[in-house]
């Protein structure tokens, strides 16, 4: 036991004395979470729009205020005619124009129907349609306000509810993905490199010719990275909750338990890589190429898995991060308990057991 603790302490020395490892360990997650949280979102914020208000009455003013109050739009200017709209688009300054016809409020209140024209710059079709959706929902919102205060005419309206993420925030999608990515990357890369380093520096040779059980070498390497990964996880969660307004609707304990499972999976994978490689460079390359790309592609947080061809969907099932992503989304966003994610958990447990068995079998108690 004392041997084991000394070994673990030695491992911590290695980590804390190497600035590169420290940067990798703690810089990478923070950089990724802030990058994905702020820069790389598919939300559209503060799009410049123009209002062309021929009506200038109560309803048009109120809708304009509502548009101005939304995070998605910032009103550039109010125009007087259609010609000016075209010029504004050509200047490339604006993405959307809202046109209110004359007698807007009168029509709305007396004819029970009024029209608003939305003109979007569809050079980028996704942005164009997203912006019109935003604007439409704001106008519909106003319409409902009006309807509530007036006598209800017979009408059928569709009501759309975006469950779990009513504001359609991109963060909710990215944070679980980044968590999976960072945990996989840090654990796999760090363990594989640190074991291969012992081989490369020749220290493995000395370790083997000692009474120390080789399996304990592995275990005592896993412990520090396990602990550091949990710290990492806490940092990611704190950043997501306080900086990115990400909710944790489910049990935090369950979230940590499931994350620990993924960490063990990654450690096992790192172990397997280190057993099959002889140099730090190969181990690093294998961890990065073999993990970063599949995790990014097949986890589902960047590209929806449902849209992929069948063979790729099958491959995606082999990526542990995919299952973890589902688990994290279920816990954090949907607030579900263990009963809803036991299947995914079981798959991860299976993968971990398989990886551990294979890597222990492949572990060499001799050189060469």
């Amino acid at each position, binding site marked *: 036991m004392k041997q084991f603790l000394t070994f673990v302490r030695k491992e911590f*020395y290695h980590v804390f004395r190497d600035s590169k490892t420290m940067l990798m360990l703690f810089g990478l997650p923070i950089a990724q979470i802030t990058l994905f949280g702020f820069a790389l979102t598919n939300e559209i914020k503060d799009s410049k729009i123009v209002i062309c208000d021929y009506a200038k009455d109560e309803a048009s003013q109120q809708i304009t205020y509502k548009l101005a109050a939304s995070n998605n739009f910032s009103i550039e200017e109010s125009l007087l005619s259609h010609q000016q709209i075209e010029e504004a688009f050509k200047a490339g300054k604006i993405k959307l124009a809202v046109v209110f016809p004359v007698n807007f409020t009168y029509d709305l209140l007396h004819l029970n129907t009024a029209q608003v024209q939305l003109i979007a710059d569809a050079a980028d079709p996704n942005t164009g349609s997203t912006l019109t959706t935003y604007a439409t929902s704001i106008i519909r919102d106003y319409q409902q306000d009006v309807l509530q205060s007036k006598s209800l005419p017979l009408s059928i309206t569709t009501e759309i509810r975006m469950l779990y993420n009513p504001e359609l925030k991109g963060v909710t999608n990215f944070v679980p993905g980044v968590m999976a990515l960072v945990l996989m990357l840090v654990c796999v890369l760090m363990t594989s490199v640190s074991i291969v380093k012992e081989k490369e520096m020749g220290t493995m040779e*000395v370790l083997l010719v000692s*009474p*120390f059980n080789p399996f304990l070498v592995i275990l005592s390497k896993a412990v520090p990275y396990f602990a550091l990964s949990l710290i990492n996880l806490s940092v990611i969660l704190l950043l997501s909750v306080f900086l990115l307004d990400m909710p944790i609707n489910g049990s935090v304990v369950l979230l940590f338990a499931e994350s620990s499972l993924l960490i063990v999976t990654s450690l096992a994978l790192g172990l397997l890589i280190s057993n099959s490689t002889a140099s730090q460079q190969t181990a690093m390359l294998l961890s990065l190429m073999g993990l970063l790309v599949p995790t990014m592609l097949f986890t589902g947080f960047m590209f929806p898995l449902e849209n992929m061809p069948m063979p790729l969907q099958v491959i995606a099932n082999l990526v542990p991060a995919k299952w973890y992503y589902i688990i994290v989304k279920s816990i954090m966003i949907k607030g579900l308990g263990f009963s809803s994610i036991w299947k995914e958990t079981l798959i991860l447990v299976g993968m971990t057991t398989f990886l551990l068995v294979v890597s222990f079998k492949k572990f060499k*108690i*001799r*050189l*060469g």
Partner: protein
Amino acid sequence: MHDVVLDKIRKTYNKNSLVAVDNVSLSVNKGELFGLIGPDGAGKTSIFRILTTLLLPDGGNASVSGYDVVKDYKIIRNHVGYMPGRFSLYQDLSVEENLNFFATLFGTTIKENYDLIKEIYVQIEPFKTRRAGKLSGGMKQKLALCCALIHRPTVLFLDEPTTGVDTVSRKEFWEMLKRLKSQGITIMVSTPYMDEATLCERIALIQSGKILSINTPANVIAQFPQNLFAIKSTNMSGLLKDLRDFGNIESCNAFGEYHHITLSDESDATQHELKTYLESKQHENIVLQSTTPTIEDCFIQLMNNQDGGNSN
């Protein structure tokens, strides 16, 4: 009583295409300082790794302290001290941390066996907070030796401990080994430096995976089959070439200040004939004298003998 026994050990690499150790048999007595002498690539490290249970032999048997290197590898790993050829300690740990780590690894403490390493450790103690990677070559070797000794091994394997170490540190190192030997530790050491062979009690000369000779250094020298002559003149490089053209020359090797030669006919007449021949080739200040062979002379002679035997 033998502490290390190799019986027809064979080791090949690259699917049998490269024979590193070729039917090597030797034994090291208890408490002996045994040297494995040979150039780089002779198979020394492979033998050490087989004995320290790091490699499996392809054929033959070997034992350390009576334990089989394949079956009883766990027991052997408890009792031997091993210092690999390359500096193999943690460069980012301090001298003291390294020593502490290896002491704990072997289930002991620095205190417990301090008397064994004291003489070596006091030399590096002033630098005990320094990172091992920042030590000089000689100090690194001393630290590595301390780490290999900290659990009071019965057999100590030192693979080229003096390679890359300055002359003074090398001398010190051999003195340390002698003191360790007096503590009753069996020491097997390898070196490519022939001049270090005489510091061992017995040596095995090895070349291309084959043992050329196993004996005491004195006996190896005594078994040199001919008289050895040292010869010099003012033009040494020309001399070497001219000597090789002389009919009665059997072997001729550059050897520092002199060239060492053996003659197929050692009579005074031939010696005289050689001198006249060289004078005719414009060599001046020719000195020809008989000399005692060194281990290197013996090694070269044995090597040439074996090559001759092979080609026949």
